[in-house]
């Protein structure tokens, strides 16, 4: 306790000086305090730029087949080698980033929005709460990947349907997080005060409770994004995800599966990108959690 008060004092004393720091000094201080956030953020940005600007990085057509060039090891012509149809693994891997990023971002955003809306309502109305949380417990007892697989078995393979199949297992988890916070915030004096001033429930939810939830939700979103990217690759690898003609990391590796012994590079490079992307996003999540002081 004493040390934290002293730290606070030191920070207050340093505050006016901080404003006079140059931009580069401020950045250096930020980097020293949040190394994981910085490293994760930089890697994430590089991969995002790589995916969005895939055509600019000396890639060829990711779909062009050249049977003469099939199963070529990495060389100057094919940096990451070529696959069993003679397609360039480097181009395919770079374009594959697009699918992963779209899936990750959409799943994180959509499950957050839907889960928050439902969680706010469920947490505030006690009568709904008991029943709905039983239902949520049941849904969360189904391992996410199996639920997503079952959904894909019932829908046509498309990027949109993969996103839907990954959102559904995430929603109960977001609801649970939001509900837990609502339950504790509901008894908070600021809510009591707002009630006394005549604020209605929707206003209390949106103006008082939602802002307090922002930090944990942002952190949760990064973790959902990372796991969605991983799960998209799992689904595609198992043949139940993104349709095979779209180069996604999972699809490239699924096709390389038969050639592990002959052409390991088909699996090596997309997997490396996948691991790096997921790692970077998880690092950003950990960094944000420390920075925003969640939990």
């Amino acid at each position, binding site marked *: 306790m004493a040390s934290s008060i002293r730290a606070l004092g030191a920070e207050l004393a340093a505050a006016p000086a901080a404003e006079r720091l140059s931009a580069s000094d401020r950045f250096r201080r930020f980097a020293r305090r949040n190394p994981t956030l910085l490293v994760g953020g930089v890697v994430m940005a590089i991969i995002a730029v790589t995916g969005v600007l895939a055509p600019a990085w000396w890639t060829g057509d990711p779909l062009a087949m050249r049977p003469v060039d099939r199963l070529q090891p990495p060389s100057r012509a094919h940096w990451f080698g070529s696959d069993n149809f003679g397609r360039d693994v480097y181009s395919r891997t770079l374009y594959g980033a697009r699918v992963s990023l779209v899936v990750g971002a959409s799943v994180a955003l959509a499950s957050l929005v839907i889960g928050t809306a439902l969680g706010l309502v469920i947490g505030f109305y006690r009568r709904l709460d008991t029943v709905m949380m039983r239902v949520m*417990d049941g849904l969360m007892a189904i391992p996410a990947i199996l639920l997503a697989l*079952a959904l894909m078995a019932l*829908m046509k393979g498309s990027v949109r349907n993969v996103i839907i199949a990954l959102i559904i297992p995430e929603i109960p988890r977001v609801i649970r997080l939001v509900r837990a916070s609502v339950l504790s915030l509901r008894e908070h004096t600021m809510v009591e005060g707002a009630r006394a001033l005549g604020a209605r429930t929707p206003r209390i939810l949106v103006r008082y409770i939602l802002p307090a939830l922002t930090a944990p939700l942002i952190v949760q979103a990064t973790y959902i994004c990372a796991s969605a990217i991983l799960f998209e690759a799992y689904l595609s690898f198992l043949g139940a995800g993104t349709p095979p003609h779209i180069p996604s990391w999972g699809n490239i590796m699924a096709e390389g599966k038969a050639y592990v012994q002959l052409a390991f590079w088909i699996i090596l490079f997309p*997997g*490396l990108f996948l*691991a790096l992307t997921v790692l970077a996003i998880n690092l950003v999540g950990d960094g944000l959690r420390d920075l925003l002081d969640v939990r």
Partner: protein
Amino acid sequence: MMREIVRRLLATIPVMGVVAIAVFALLHVTPGDPAVIIAGDYATADDIARVRTKLGLDKPFLTQVGIWLGGIARGDLGASIYSGLPVTTLIKQRAEATISLTLLAMVISILIGVPVGVLAAWRRGSWIDRSVMIFAVSGFSMPTFWLGFVLVYVFAISAHWLPVQGFQSIERGLWPFLRHLILPAITLSLVYMALIARMTRASMLGVLSEDYVRTAFAKGLAPRRVLLRHALKNASLPVVTIIGIGFALLIGGAVVTESVFALPGLGRLTVDAIVRRDYPVIQGVILIVSGVYVAINLLVDVLYVVLDPRIKY
């Protein structure tokens, strides 16, 4: 204590009820006519009609739910559309590989994850701690199947130490069984191990700053004894919880790992069923696997009461 355990046991009934209904309702919630989807792209009107009567999709929805729940109560999960065999038979055939794989992975993860987490907490801030944390974050981000391929490439294809893929039943001897299972189990265990190590470290850090730990060190007990008997025992609750919750990761990973190593388990059964749109098999596997997950978490709750008699539900 018995009463707490019975109460927790009863609480699993609604959860499993929701699972059973949800798995069944998926068929109807997803867009389109389920009979058309299950019959496949090249189905004739006759095929579709046959699927519809076979799955009872022509009956009212509530009747269908009743039939499905009644079947579960009698231990009947329906029959595969593809092979006509009862789903329970198919699951029994494939259970051995999956149970062996997940159990071995679980044992490996706990045997390595817990000590590594304890060590990291004890030597907080040292290079050991930092490497454990790096391992924990990267292990958690590792795509399971990719790691599997890398291990296969290194240990089976390049070094020829272990078989590339396949499964040997334990009836054929322990050595062939383990030789085939060790790479898949290591592949599968990494994510889980990372999770356990991280949780053990965090929980131990909280306990190590307690007075009784300082006292134990001060009276000259061996560090090993203090760490394991005094600290770990009190830090074990969150670790046990994460072992239960993380089991879902293990199951999800098993589906993919079985596919990489061509293990004839429940994951392969599910993936094959998905390609054939054999929904009765999919729904049966999900029900059983979720049941196991719920049972494991029930076990964790019971273990709680044993570890900490103060806990009441």
